[in-house]
C-alpha cells in the first residue's frame, strides 16, 4: 500500500479509474450482464410495434411518453443508438476478455503451462530405461502417438501431447462473434436496401430506400420483359418470375430471370423477387347478349376504347379497372352509349353471375388478362461477406471445442537407490475423470506385467 502512496498524485487519481475500465472490459460478468440486457432490449423491440413512428407522434402529440419514445428510438429499437451501443460494448468486452486470456492460451500451446489435473506417484524396481519402453508401448492406446523423451541428470521424462488444436476453439469462437458484429456494422453504414416496382415492358434505374423512402439511382437500368405467376392445381402460388434485362452505362446487357430464392447479382448489387401487383389489363372479355340474339363473348383490348355491338349499334367503352379486393372480384367501369341516347356508366364485376341489363342488352364481365408490375428488392451489403467469414469461423470453433480435446501426459522417471520413482501427471480439457481413470489403470496394469 505504501508503494502506491509514494507514486505521483496524478497517477493516484487515474490508476484506479483505468482499473475499473479494464475490469469492465475484461470481465465475463460484464459479458453475461450485456447478454441478458441485450436479450431484454430485443424483447422490447418485438413488443413495441416497430417503424410506426408517424402514428405514435400524431396520436400522442407532444406528451412526455412520445418525447421519450423519440429520444430512445423506441419505434426502431434495433437501429437505435443505445442498442447499437450495447452491441459495440459487447464486441469490446469480448475482445477485452480474449486479450486477457490470450497469453495463457499461448503459453499452453507452447507447453510452458505446467498445470496438471492429476498426479500419481508410484515406485518400481525396474530401471528407467526398461520402464520407458514399457510405458511408450502401453500408453500408445490412449495417447495415440509416441512420447517425447527428455533426459536430465536426475532421470528422464516421457511426455505426450494430443489434439493441441483444441486450444484454437475458444479464440476462434470469440473472434468470430466480433467479426460478425463488425460485418453487421459495415452493413449498417455502407450497405443499402431498397425496393423498386416496374411495370412489364418498362424500365427503371431508381429505387426507394426501405429505411427512409428516399429515391436513389442505380448504376444500371432494369428492363422488365415479362412477369409470370404460376399456380399449383390447388390455386396456391408456385412461382413468381420476372424476366429482366440489366443494362449498364456502357451498354453491356445481362439477360436473366429472377425468382423467389433465385436472385441475380449485377455490379455487386443483388436483385430479389419480392412482390407483384396487378396494375392494369391487357385484354378484357365481355359477354354481350341482345334481347333476341344469343350471348356472345368478345375480347377487347382496353387500349382500343370503342366496341360497337352488331345488333343495336351500341358503343361500349372501358374506362376504368379495379383489380378487386371484395368478394365480387375484379371490376371494370364501362361507358355505354346507345346510338342516339345519353351515355351511362356502369360497373361490372368478375364474380357476379347475373349480367347487367342496360339499354336492351345484357352485359357481363367474363375475365381479363392482367398487366403486372413486379416488385424487386435491391440490396447491397459489403458487410455480408464479413459476416459469412465470421459464421464459418464460429462453426469451426464449435467443431474444435466439441470434437477435439487437448490431453497432456507426463511420466517422470527418477532412479533412487534400487528403485525408480514414477510420477505420472496429466491434463485433459474435457472428460477429465475418464482420462485420469484410463491413464491410471493403464499405468498400473503395465507395472504388474513382468
Amino acid at each position, binding site marked *: 500500500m505504501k508503494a502506491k502512496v509514494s507514486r505521483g498524485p496524478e497517477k493516484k487519481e487515474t490508476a484506479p479509474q483505468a482499473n475499473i475500465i479494464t475490469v469492465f472490459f475484461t470481465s*465475463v460478468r460484464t459479458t*453475461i450482464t450485456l447478454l441478458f440486457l441485450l*436479450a431484454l432490449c430485443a424483447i422490447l*423491440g418485438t413488443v413495441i410495434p416497430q417503424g410506426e413512428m408517424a402514428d405514435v407522434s400524431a396520436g400522442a402529440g407532444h406528451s412526455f411518453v412520445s418525447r421519450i419514445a423519440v429520444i430512445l428510438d423506441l419505434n426502431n429499437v434495433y437501429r437505435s443508438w443505445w442498442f447499437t451501443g450495447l452491441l459495440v460494448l459487447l464486441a469490446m468486452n469480448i475482445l477485452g476478455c480474449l486479450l486477457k486470456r490470450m497469453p495463457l492460451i499461448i503459453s499452453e500451446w507452447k507447453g510452458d503451462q505446467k498445470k496438471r489435473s492429476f498426479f500419481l506417484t508410484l515406485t518400481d524396481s525396474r530401471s528407467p530405461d526398461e520402464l520407458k519402453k514399457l510405458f511408450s508401448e502401453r500408453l500408445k492406446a490412449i495417447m495415440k502417438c509416441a512420447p517425447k523423451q527428455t533426459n536430465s541428470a536426475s532421470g528422464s521424462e516421457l511426455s505426450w501431447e494430443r489434439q493441441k488444436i483444441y486450444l484454437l476453439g475458444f479464440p476462434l469462437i470469440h473472434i468470430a462473434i466480433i467479426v460478425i458484429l463488425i460485418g453487421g456494422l459495415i452493413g449498417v453504414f455502407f450497405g443499402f436496401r431498397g425496393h423498386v416496382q416496374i411495370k412489364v415492358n418498362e424500365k427503371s434505374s431508381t429505387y426507394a430506400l426501405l429505411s427512409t423512402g428516399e429515391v436513389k439511382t442505380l448504376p444500371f437500368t432494369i428492363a422488365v420483359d415479362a412477369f409470370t405467376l404460376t399456380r399449383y392445381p390447388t390455386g396456391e402460388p408456385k*412461382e413468381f418470375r420476372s424476366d429482366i434485362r440489366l443494362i449498364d452505362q456502357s451498354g453491356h446487357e445481362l439477360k436473366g430471370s429472377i425468382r*423467389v*430464392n433465385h436472385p441475380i447479382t449485377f455490379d455487386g448489387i443483388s436483385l430479389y423477387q419480392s412482390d407483384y401487383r396487378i396494375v392494369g389489363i391487357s385484354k378484357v372479355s365481355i359477354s354481350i347478349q341482345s334481347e333476341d340474339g344469343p350471348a356472345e363473348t368478345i375480347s377487347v383490348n382496353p387500349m382500343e376504347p370503342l366496341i360497337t355491338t352488331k345488333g343495336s349499334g351500341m358503343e361500349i367503352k372501358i374506362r376504368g379497372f379495379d383489380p378487386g379486393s371484395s368478394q365480387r372480384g375484379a371490376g371494370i367501369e364501362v361507358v355505354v352509349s346507345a346510338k342516339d341516347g345519353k351515355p351511362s356508366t356502369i360497373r361490372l364485376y368478375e364474380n357476379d353471375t347475373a349480367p347487367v341489363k342496360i339499354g336492351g342488352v345484357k352485359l357481363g364481365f367474363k375475365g381479363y388478362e392482367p398487366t403486372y408490375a413486379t416488385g424487386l428488392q435491391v440490396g447491397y451489403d459489403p458487410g455480408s461477406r464479413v459476416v459469412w467469414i465470421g459464421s464459418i469461423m464460429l*462453426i469451426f470453433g*464449435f467443431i474444435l471445442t466439441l470434437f477435439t480435446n487437448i490431453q497432456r501426459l507426463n511420466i517422470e522417471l527418477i532412479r533412487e537407490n534400487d528403485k525408480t520413482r514414477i510420477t505420472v501427471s496429466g491434463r485433459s480439457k474435457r472428460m477429465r475423470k475418464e482420462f485420469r481413470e484410463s491413464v491410471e489403470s493403464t499405468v498400473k496394469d503395465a507395472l504388474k506385467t513382468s
Partner: protein
Amino acid sequence: MDSVDLNSYLAFGYLGWIIAYLITSLSGRAALTAKKTLFWTLVLLFVIHTAAIGLRWAESYWMGIGHAPLSNLYESLVFFAWTILLALLLVWRKFRNDVIVFVGMPIVFIVMASTFLIDSQIRPLIPALQSNWLVAHVFTCFLGYAGFAVSFVAAVLLLIVRSWENPPSFFPKKALLDEIVYRSILVGFPLLSLGIITGAAWADHAWGAYWSWDPKETWSLITWMVYAGFLHARLTRGWSGGKTAILSVIGFAAVMFTYFGVNYLPGLHSYF
C-alpha cells in the same frame, strides 16, 4: 394407412409407453429386463416415427408436389417430437438413467397429440420455402431445440430434487441432473447457432438481407443469448445446480416462444 394415421397411432403409442413405464415402476418390477424391454419398445416407436416422416415425404412425391416434410406447423410438430425422442434415447444410452426419459416422454406425447388439432394436409411448397436451405435450417434448429428440451426436463427434475430433504433412491442424483442440464445445452447451443447461420444464409439468398429483425429471428437471437449467458455463467463464474437450472428453464421458455408465441406477432416466418 397414410402418414397422418401413423402419426395418430404413434401419439397413442407414446401414451401407452408412459403408462407401461408407470405400471412397471409401481409394481416394483423395475428389474433390468423390464427396463431393457421398455428401452427397445421406445426404440421401435422411434423407428416407426422415422418411417412416418419418410412416408409423408414419399406421399408428397406421389402427389406430384414433392418436398421435405418440414413445411408447415403440423410437419414441424411431428419432426419436433422426433428430435426430442432422439435426444431422450441418447440420454438414456449415455447417462444410463430412465427417470429423465419418463419425465420427458409426456412432452413427446403432448406434441404429437397437439397435431390432432391442426391441418394435416400435405400442401405444395410456396415459393419462399422452395430452397435447399429449408432442410438444413429446420433440421439444425430443431435438433438444437431437442437438446434444450432435454436440458429443461433435467432442470425441472433438479429443482424438484433440491426441494426434497430425502429424495427417493431411484431418483437421479443431483450431480447427474446438473451434468445433463449442462451437457445438453453444450450440444444444443452450437446446433442453434448453426440453425441461425443457415437461416441467415437462406434469408440473404431469398430476401437479400441476412438479418431483418423479424420476430422469429429476434427471438431466436434472444434464446441464443440466454444460452450463451448460461454457458458463460457455468464455465467462468462457476454457476451450477439451482441457478443454472433456472437459466435452463428460462431458455426453454424462450425456445417455446420462438417456436409458437412468435406466430402471434407479424413477420416473415408466418408459415410455421
